[in-house]
Structures are given as C-alpha cells and as structure tokens.
C-alpha cells in the first residue's frame, strides 16, 4: 500500500471507511478503538518523522572537496568543459543528426543562399520602377531647362541690346574725338596701316580669316583707325546684336597708345 493510501485512510473516521478499506486493513485494526489508536500513533510517528527531517544534518564541505579531488584524478584527460565546449554546442554526440545545432545552422545557411536569386530579382524589378520614375523626372527636368534657357536667352537679348546701345554711344564719342585730332598724322598712319593690313589679310588662309565683323575692313579711305585696323561698321550694321563686350574692350585697348 502506498503512503498516500495510508494517509487517506487515517484522514477519515472509522465510520467513513468503506468495507473494502476495512477488510484491506483488517491486519492493522479490527474495531473502531483499534483504528483510533492506530491513527493517533500514526500521526505521532508522522510528526516525529517531520521533526527529525528538519533536524537532518548537512554533509561537511570537506567531503565534497575530497570527492572533487578524486574526480579530477579520475578524469584528468577528459576536461570538465568537454560537454560545455563550443564543439559540443555544434555537434553533440548524444543528439540525432537532425537535432544537431550544426545541422540547423547549415539548413539556415542553405535557405539563405537559395534566397539570394530571389532577392536579386526583386532588386531588378525595383530598378525598373526607379528608371521609369527617373525618365519621368528627366523629361520634366528637360522641359524645365528649356523654359529656363528661354528665359535666360530673353534676358541675354535684352542685355545685348543694352550693350549695343552702349557701344554705339562709345563709337560716336570716339569719332567726335578723332575728328578733332591733326589730320596729317592720321592720314599717313592710315595709309601705312591699311597697306599692311590688306597684305596680311590676303596672306591668311580661308580658315584663319576672321569671320567676325569686328576685323573686317572696307577701304582705307573709310578707315579712320591710326594703327590700320579697320572696323566694318556702317550705320545700318551698327544696329546688329553680335558685338561682344570683349571686342569692345580690345577696341578700346587699341586706342590707348594713340592718345
């Protein structure tokens, strides 16, 4: 009979016992008095056992240390950390192959490798989407640039117009100034300069010949420049818009040694 069965019997009163329990325990008690006596003693014994268990002593630490030494002597070669080592973490000889950590890690790695092509395909699709978006953007940008260029050109044309006006006024001032200088010196210079200029100009190849209006000269009689540089400028051409600021500055520099 297990302990819990005995306990359950002694937790009951004699009246509560079934016939089967009474017959089973007939060796221990025959009547209610004997049952009560046995119950009391049994409880006393249980209390005594509990009391003695609470007084149980602990083994000395010396015993443990001696046993530890004995253990280390016995298992010198097999390290304490063998089963706690990293190698056992990966390959535990007591586990089945599919339960090994190494197998699991390898499976994860294979899955990751198999995922790579799918990851790349996703990237390509993404790039396609991005490219389409970029095209839309670039078209928009081009339109914007066109509009901006138009605006800038309009501004430049306005600036050119103002530059031309400035140049015309400068030329008029120059002519007025030049008319006031001695005529003899100017004419000698004009003759010498015009001959040199015409010869040099003829010697230039077709490519080297300036196409700009700035360096084109007409006749020496019309040219009034002291160094023989002749400017093709008639009143009708002076209104053209291809007169750059740089040319204007060169022109002014040429005037400097004259005066």
């Amino acid at each position, binding site marked *: *009979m*297990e*302990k819990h069965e005995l306990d359950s019997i002694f937790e009951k009163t004699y009246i509560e016992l079934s016939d089967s329990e009474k017959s089973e325990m007939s*060796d*221990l008690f025959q009547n209610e*008095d004997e049952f*009560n*006596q*046995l119950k*009391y*003693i*049994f409880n*006393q*014994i*249980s209390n*005594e*056992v509990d*009391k*003695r*268990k609470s007084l*149980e*002593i*602990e*083994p*000395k630490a010396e*015993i*443990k240390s*001696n*046993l*530890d030494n*004995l*253990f*280390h002597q*016995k*298992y010198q070669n*097999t*390290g*304490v*950390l*063998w*089963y*706690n*080592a*990293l190698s*056992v*973490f990966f390959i535990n000889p007591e586990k089945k192959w599919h339960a090994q950590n190494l197998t699991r890690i390898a499976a994860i790695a294979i899955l990751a490798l198999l995922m790579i092509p799918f990851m790349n395909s996703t990237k390509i699709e993404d790039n396609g989407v991005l490219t389409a978006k970029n095209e839309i953007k670039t078209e928009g940008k081009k339109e914007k640039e066109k509009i901006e260029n138009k605006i800038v050109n309009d501004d430049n044309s306005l600036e050119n117009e103002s530059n031309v006006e400035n140049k015309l006024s400068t030329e008029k001032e120059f002519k007025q100034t030049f008319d006031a200088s001695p005529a003899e010196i100017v004419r000698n210079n004009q003759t010498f300069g015009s001959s040199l200029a015409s010869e040099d100009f003829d010697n230039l190849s077709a490519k080297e010949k300036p196409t700009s209006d700035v360096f084109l000269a007409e006749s020496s009689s019309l040219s009034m420049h002291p160094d023989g540089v002749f400017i093709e400028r008639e009143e009708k051409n002076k209104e053209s818009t291809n007169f750059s600021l740089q040319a204007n500055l060169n022109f002014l520099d040429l005037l400097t040694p004259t005066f």
Partner: protein
Amino acid sequence: MQILRKKYNTFSDEDLMNYLSKGDKFAFDELYSRYAKAMLNYFKRLLWNDLEKAEDFVHDLFAKIIQKPESFDASRSFKTWFYSVANNMCKNEYKKQEVRKNTSYSIEPNFVAKDEKTNVLNEVQDSFFGEAFDKKIKEMDNKHSEVFKLRHFDGLSIKEIAEVLNANEGTIKSRLFYATKYLAESLKEFNPLVNR
C-alpha cells in the same frame, strides 16, 4: 562557456549518471547535491547515529560512483540502485562489526503487545515519545525496521523499497504493516484516549 552549460537540475538521475561516466563534473555536482544530505542521514540512522562513520560512508559511496560508474545498471532506477548500494554497505558494516542488534524480534501475525496497566501518559511528556519511538524501532526486527525507515524517513515507495532490498512488493507491504502495527501497540501508552 557558462552560457552553453546544460540545465543539470532538469536532468534525471540516470542521465546525470550517464554524463558523469563520461567525465562531466557538473553532473557529479548535481547528483551530490541531490543525494548527499539524504544519504548522510540514512547512514546515520543505520549506523547507530555515528555521524563520523556516516560521513565516511557518504564519501565511500560517492567515491564508488566516481571510480566505477559503469557498475550502475542503466536499466534500473538510480535512486533504488544507490540506496541498495548504501544498504549493502551497512550490511557489510554490520558483519564487520559483528553487531546484530535485536535480531530476534520478528513480529508474529498474532502479535499482541504487552498490556502494561500503568498509565504513563501523566508521567511522560510529549518529548518522551521520540525516545520511546527510537527504542521501539531498535527493538524491532531489522527487516521490519529498515522497511519502516525507508518508507517514512527516506520517502521511498513500496516498489522502490522492494528494489532496494531485492524483495517482492508483497513482502515489503506485509513487513511495513507489521512494523506499523507493532509500533502502534508498543506506543499506545502515549495515546490519551486509550489511557483516559
């Protein structure tokens, strides 16, 4: 490495013994923490309350499982195997010391305790119950007392006691019944209801 340490406290005794046989120190530590105290008190009870001798026996018992772990039969319960080894050690000690106390107290089925008419209830205190209990346990036949002790002090089941003592369960059950009855009859003087 502490991170990778196994949870030894969740392992069964048999698994720990298996690890111990391969040199796992932590398995040994866990087994020691589980059984050292119980075995010390077991030896103390069986060896005439000789604490020093009991400690020596605990050392020898654990030394055996260190030196010869292969002697443990994995098909058996470690607990019963361990107690049976301890029990055999005590028997050897009895033989060695040639001390056999109260060997003729085999309880007959028709045993009737002496009816001492003296009312001792008023004469003894409750603390005396322990002394009387010890006395009656010692007076009891060894085969009955050891079953009683294993049952009540060590908390082993009938089946486990049968394995430890290498006897069948029916025998153990009858021994326990007679031991209980003997004690109840012997200690009935302490029952105030009877002596009223």
